[in-house]
């Protein structure tokens, strides 16, 4: 272990001592933040573009640039989420829930500063896991068979049902179920049977998440921002973006927990940043006190720290299966795999044979990348805040165009736009009726996994549910889920409170 750390620091120092490396890193990180901040431009597209640009460079420099961009892009998504309530990437959707209310209160600067530092600390914690526990986490990730994937998706759905609903709780469940339903559109993964495609080849591949996300969050925001009377620009924060030490200390518990969740979610193959933020957000809510819970959805510090830390820590997590098993943990990680192959590096179990210390090198680069993200973030936050001072009526039409270009750029398909507009209108109308929109997006993200894994698991067990109870990870997931569901009911809370009291009494006696 100690040897590993000393080796790690020697690699780190070697990287830092080359000025050209640092320049590449900072530029890539800056580009990444811009990419993340533009609605629709995702980390995946950024990594794809940079792959072409870094083709001629050496493998080390290319890796530096790619990882710098990846980390920056995941973080950059929080800017539009906090400032204009349009998440730039699916990963930042949870951040918008509490980030935007803070902006409305005129605390945008504080929010940005806090998420920047929390993301930085979160990534570093995630990396500590990567260095020390990667073989263990990788073997744990291999415990995930179809049953576990199904249960994980189900857990995500159960968590999303408890998210803040401005009106009746049942409304959140309805939009969540509708989101799950949207995920079933297209060819089913098991039998290739076209479901709800209405003979349209465009629907065969299912609905893309990014156009739906931009439609569901972007379009209603454009409509509302333009037609809201008395547009008072919130006072932009002047002064120190650097968060106080106290604020960090106050939230350190949440940062640590969220980083752990982020790494865990990221390490599961095929599950990525999109989900990490939500899981962390809901867990934060569940584990908070009553008074803190009331703050959720209205601009809670804990909420933004939790979601942002988790999605950044997820990057480290996603690299674990990529590097140790050659299985990409998330879509941008899949692109990263392609880029590594181009440079003659084949990630997988054989990587330590072919490229000794590669894992440590990646970790060192990641540490630098998150540092670059932090520095860039703090420098940029002040400039980005000026966006709020632009007249809304001039700025929002441009945002609308950006949303449209972004959704188009993802796969150059007009159908994405044709899909995005009706989704946006429906989301707007639902929002006016006080239906929460976020569960719909979570449903769409998780629905495919739940459907496919459940049926494959049943196919393997020939219709029996018993294998769930034979698998340790599955049992843990079932228990966690049952606790979450039971916690919704009053009688369970009363029971729990009584039990604790009883125990305290027996202890004191």
């Amino acid at each position, binding site marked *: 272990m100690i040897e590993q750390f000393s080796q790690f620091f020697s690699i780190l120092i070697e990287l830092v001592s080359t000025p050209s490396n640092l320049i590449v890193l900072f530029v890539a990180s800056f580009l990444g933040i811009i990419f993340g901040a533009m609605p629709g*431009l995702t980390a995946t*597209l950024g990594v794809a*573009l940079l792959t072409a640009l870094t083709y001629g460079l050496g493998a080390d420099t290319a890796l530096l640039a790619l990882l710098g961009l990846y980390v920056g892009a995941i973080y950059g998504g929080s800017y539009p989420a906090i400032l204009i309530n349009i998440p730039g990437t699916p990963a930042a959707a949870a951040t918008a829930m509490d980030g935007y209310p803070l902006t409305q209160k005129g605390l945008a600067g504080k929010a940005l500063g806090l998420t920047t530092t929390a993301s930085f600390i979160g990534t570093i914690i995630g990396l500590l896991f990567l260095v020390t526990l990667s073989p263990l986490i990788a073997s744990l990730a291999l415990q995930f068979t179809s049953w576990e994937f199904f249960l994980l998706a189900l857990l995500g759905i159960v968590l999303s049902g408890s998210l803040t609903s401005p*009106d*009746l709780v*049942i*409304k959140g*469940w*309805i939009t969540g*179920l509708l989101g*799950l*339903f949207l995920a*079933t559109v297209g060819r*089913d993964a*098991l*039998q*290739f*049977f076209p*479901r*709800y495609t209405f003979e349209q080849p465009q629907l065969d591949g299912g609905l893309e998440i990014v156009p739906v996300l931009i439609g569901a969050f972007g*379009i209603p925001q*454009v*409509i509302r921002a*333009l*037609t*809201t*009377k008395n547009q008072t620009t919130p006072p932009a924060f002047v002064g120190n973006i650097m968060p106080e030490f106290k604020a960090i200390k106050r939230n350190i518990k949440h940062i640590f927990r969220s980083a752990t969740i982020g790494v865990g979610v990221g390490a599961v193959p095929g599950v990525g940043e999109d989900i990490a933020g939500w899981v962390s957000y809901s867990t934060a809510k569940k584990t908070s006190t009553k008074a803190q819970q009331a703050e959720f959805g209205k601009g809670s510090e804990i909420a933004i720290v939790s979601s942002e830390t988790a999605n950044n820590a997820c990057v480290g997590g996603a690299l674990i299966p990529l590097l140790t098993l050659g299985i990409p943990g998330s879509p941008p990680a899949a692109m990263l795999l392609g880029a590594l192959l181009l440079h003659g590096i084949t990630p997988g179990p054989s990587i330590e044979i072919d490229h000794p210390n590669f894992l440590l090198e990646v970790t060192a680069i990641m540490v630098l990348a998150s540092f670059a993200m932090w520095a860039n973030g703090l420098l940029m936050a002040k400039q980005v805040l000026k966006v709020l001072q632009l*007249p809304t*009526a*001039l700025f*929002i*039409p*441009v945002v*609308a*165009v*950006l949303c*449209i*270009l972004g959704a*188009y*750029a993802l796969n*150059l398909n*007009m159908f994405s*736009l*044709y899909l*995005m*507009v009706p989704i946006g*209108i429906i989301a*707007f109308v*639902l929002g*006016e*009726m*006080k*239906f929460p929109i976020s569960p719909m997006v979570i449903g769409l993200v998780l629905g495919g996994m739940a*459907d496919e894994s*459940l*049926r494959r698991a*049943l*196919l393997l067990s*020939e*219709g029996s549910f018993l294998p769930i109870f034979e698998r340790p990870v599955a049992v843990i997931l079932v228990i966690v889920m049952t606790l979450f569901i039971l916690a919704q009911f009053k009688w369970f809370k009363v029971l729990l409170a009584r039990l604790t009291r009883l125990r305290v009494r027996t202890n004191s006696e």
Partner: protein
Amino acid sequence: MTDNASGLPINQNNNDQNNEKGNGKNNEQTYRQYDFKFVIALLVILAYILKLTLSFPMSGSYGGVENQWYVSPALFPLILLTALFLCCISLLMSSIKQQGHQHFFSLAHWLGNKDNQQVRDRWLIIGLLIGYVYLLIPATDFYLATAVFVCSLTSIFYLQIDQARRTVIAANILLAATLVTIRSTLNEDPSISILDINDLENSILYCDLSTGFTLISLVIWQVICGSKIDKPRVMYNLIAVLIVPLILVMAFSFLLYVPMPVEYGSVISFLNWLIYEQLGI
């Protein structure tokens, strides 16, 4: 339907009074009324989806996989449908409990109060967005389409020109009608619809000319009407309408290598020529 429509103004009055009181309970009742309409609409859709779902293969072999109930593509949708039906019924009950079924046939409750400027503006934005995405982008150069769209929005909400809505609506409808006419007359292949991207050169040229003409007219109108109100505002507006879309188009096509939807549009062809052949980058 007509019977109910005649009762509309009365309902409207009641509603207005409720709003004036600002009573929380009445406000909640409005939401229950929305819920009722939503649930009814959703149930109709769900019934249709159920019909589709029941036609999925439940047995037999499909795609090389032996089919059983647990592999059927209908399994997951059916679980979801059951859950949705239960949720709908629960919402319906709570809605009826609070008189949510009232005003079900009132059109104003479906579309919002038509005398309310805010409500009308919202529908106007939706209309402009639909026109922009479904008619303008696939037919004509992306820069021109975007400039017209931004221009329409800023004249109403930023410059706040008197009677701007009427002019903008007229200009957009006229342009949309022209584009549809041009495309359908010049269309060679009947399988290509208005929603498919325009790939005929003469059709693109005519579409670009009409969009360009609309843009120029709108901008001149903005400058003339806007100058009366506020000069610097007109300047900012012109930057947002003409310069920003140009920057966006250039950034996407030359830095991010994202080809524009209509690849052979006039402005983008000109930019291509300028950048690659004249400047040789």
